[in-house]
């Protein structure tokens, strides 16, 4: 009985036309200014800041890809860094510029190929792994992540014989800020995909599956192909992020994805999607950007407070502690995550009256309660 009501909560609530006056929209526009300032003006401050902002954009894309997988399909992946790496590897090898800038055509081909190859890898893994039920999938993706990294990324002809594959940007995007705008556009593409999934038949099917597989299949949702579709879309988004990553670093190096660095990335990706709030794209993007910016943020703070040497000695561990602390407080005290906190504001910006109450939009139900993923 409870299962059926749960199934219904995932559906889009009926849209009501809110009567927002022109003044209301103007006010919302004014409050949007600080956000725009943060996104467009602050990264303009210096080249380093732009660099960090691009990294944040890449993490936002990975966060959205995790959101599709964990938030909408309710599957947990501990191997997402492998798709990021596959994307980066593909893009770098498609352009492999040597010392010159890529021409716009191969650049676009590289970006597209990054998404396609990662999607293909996801289809391959998903075809096998999705037959495995429940928590074992987490294990399989974990093993997949480390095996891909160590077996494929270390093949000398693919990683530039351990020296890295150069991936210089085309001249139009040579500047950091121009490339940042391009990365933002790619984030926009991922957001569009996310919105599309959420609103289409596919998304409703996925959420129904997540909430109760039996009920959903009784309603005619094709379990395996829908899960696979979610898996592939998530892989494609991570691959796209990987393509942007390769051109951000202007180089593919397997060291970014193998052993401890890769494992750490995998964990951070899970942490950020949970802290952001499963199924909540605003929260996930904000959390992803935060985790991408932890290092520069704390380096700055440490620099100004004279703790710099302590910080540089304990860098990796500080971000671990922060991530773990946020994750634990999220799952124990605030299952909706950051998205839950931001929800009243995002709702207001979308033209509804401001209220702190829940509106029953339970896209984040995967962690919120219920028996959405069973062992």
């Amino acid at each position: 009985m409870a299962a059926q009501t749960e199934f219904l909560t995932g559906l889009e609530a009926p849209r009501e036309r809110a009567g927002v006056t022109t003044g209301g929209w103007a006010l919302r526009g004014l409050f949007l200014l600080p956000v725009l300032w943060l996104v467009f003006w602050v990264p303009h401050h210096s080249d380093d800041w732009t660099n960090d902002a691009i990294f944040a954009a890449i993490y936002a894309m990975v966060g959205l890809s995790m959101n599709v997988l964990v938030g909408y399909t309710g599957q947990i992946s501990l191997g997402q860094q492998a798709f990021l790496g596959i994307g980066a590897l593909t893009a770098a090898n498609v352009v492999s510029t040597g010392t010159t800038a890529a021409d716009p055509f191969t650049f676009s081909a590289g970006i597209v190929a990054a998404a396609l190859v990662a999607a293909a890898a996801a289809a391959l893994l998903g075809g096998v792994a999705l037959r495995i039920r429940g928590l074992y999938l987490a294990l399989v993706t974990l093993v997949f992540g480390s095996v891909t990294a160590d077996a494929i990324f270390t093949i000398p002809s693919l990683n530039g014989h351990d020296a890295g594959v150069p991936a210089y940007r085309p001249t139009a995007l040579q500047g950091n800020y121009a490339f940042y705008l391009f990365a933002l556009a790619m984030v926009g593409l991922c957001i569009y995909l996310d919105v599309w999934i959420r609103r289409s038949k596919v998304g409703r099917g996925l959420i129904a599956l997540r909430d109760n597989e039996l009920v959903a299949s009784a309603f005619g949702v094709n379990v395996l192909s829908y899960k696979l579709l979610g898996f592939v879309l998530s892989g494609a988004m991570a691959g796209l992020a990987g393509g942007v990553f390769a051109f951000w670093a202007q180089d593919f190096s397997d060291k970014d994805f193998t052993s401890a660095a890769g494992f750490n990335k995998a964990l951070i990706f899970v942490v950020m999607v949970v802290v952001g709030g499963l199924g909540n794209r605003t929260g996930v993007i904000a959390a992803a950007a935060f985790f991408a910016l932890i290092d520069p943020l704390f380096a700055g703070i440490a620099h100004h407070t004279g703790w710099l040497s302590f910080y540089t000695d304990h860098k990796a561990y500080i971000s671990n502690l922060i991530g773990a602390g946020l994750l634990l407080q999220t799952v124990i005290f605030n299952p909706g995550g950051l998205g839950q906190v931001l929800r009243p504001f995002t709702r207001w910006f979308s033209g509804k009256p401001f209220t702190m109450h829940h509106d029953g939009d339970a896209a984040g139900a995967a962690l919120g309660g219920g028996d959405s993923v069973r062992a």
Partner: protein
Amino acid sequence: MDVLATSFSSQINLLTPLISGIANGAAYGLLGLGLVLLYKSNRIFNFAQGEFATIAAVVAYVFDRGTGWVPKVPYFLALALGILAAVLVAIATERLVIRPLFNRPRVVLVVATVGVALFLIGLEGMLPYPQTASLRTISDALHVQAYVTQVNGVVVLDQDIAKLIALAVLAVLAFVFFRYTPTGTAILAVSQDATAARVVGISVERISMTTWAIAGFLGGVAGVLLAVPPAGSVTPGSITGLTLTVAFSAAVLGGMTSLPGAFVGGLLIGLIEAFANADHSYVPGLNSLPTAQAEVAVAVVLLAILLVRPRGLLGQEA
């Protein structure tokens, strides 16, 4: 003929991978035991198991070495203190993280254990001790010759023998515990149906705490035996990084619900790895994969087990 025989035996040295496989397998089995215990009772994968082990190793190292703040104690007392620390951390994990989430979906608990692992790695990283050091081996502490046996010129480390004995003893003890003691059967009862167990008078809370304490103990024993040279160290996160994934594969291969299965699975995975990594120059084409034959082999075995026989070799529903 004679020439062929000599070249054959020099190329296929089966003894070296056999011995290193058993030694590594013992390590995987030791960690796997704790994973199996918690899966058996709570139906979760505990990603913090490797960190229970590292915490034990770190504490044992600090007490064994002695610093300004920490007294230097005899080696085996230091090991015991390390294991105690792991038990305390496990109990704290249960009280602070697991119990508040007890009625939530299992995937939440798994994510929470990932958080615990990250947190413990961070905590270890903040502690002021030489983080690349490693614990003394048992033979080193007893001032005896480090290599006890040489079989056909292949040395066998006595630390590896200690691991193997500890693994066998613990697996058997745990098996007996679950089969014959009231607490053990109560743990199984809670894992099958917490409400029904409560109805017959079992304190679910106390049982949960006991389970985690035992898991901490198993992890602690693994930690103090693993963090020794040549491969082991007390670096934060080292045991998680080196063995956790493989320990999971071992536990799955043995059957996630079978404690002796963790023993068998550990040894099998260790052997698979060792033989996959061994010199394959006599098998054309096999050496073309760069460095990850062992990992690929383990991944293939894991997938095959999950697809063909999801309960593993010895597993059954508890």
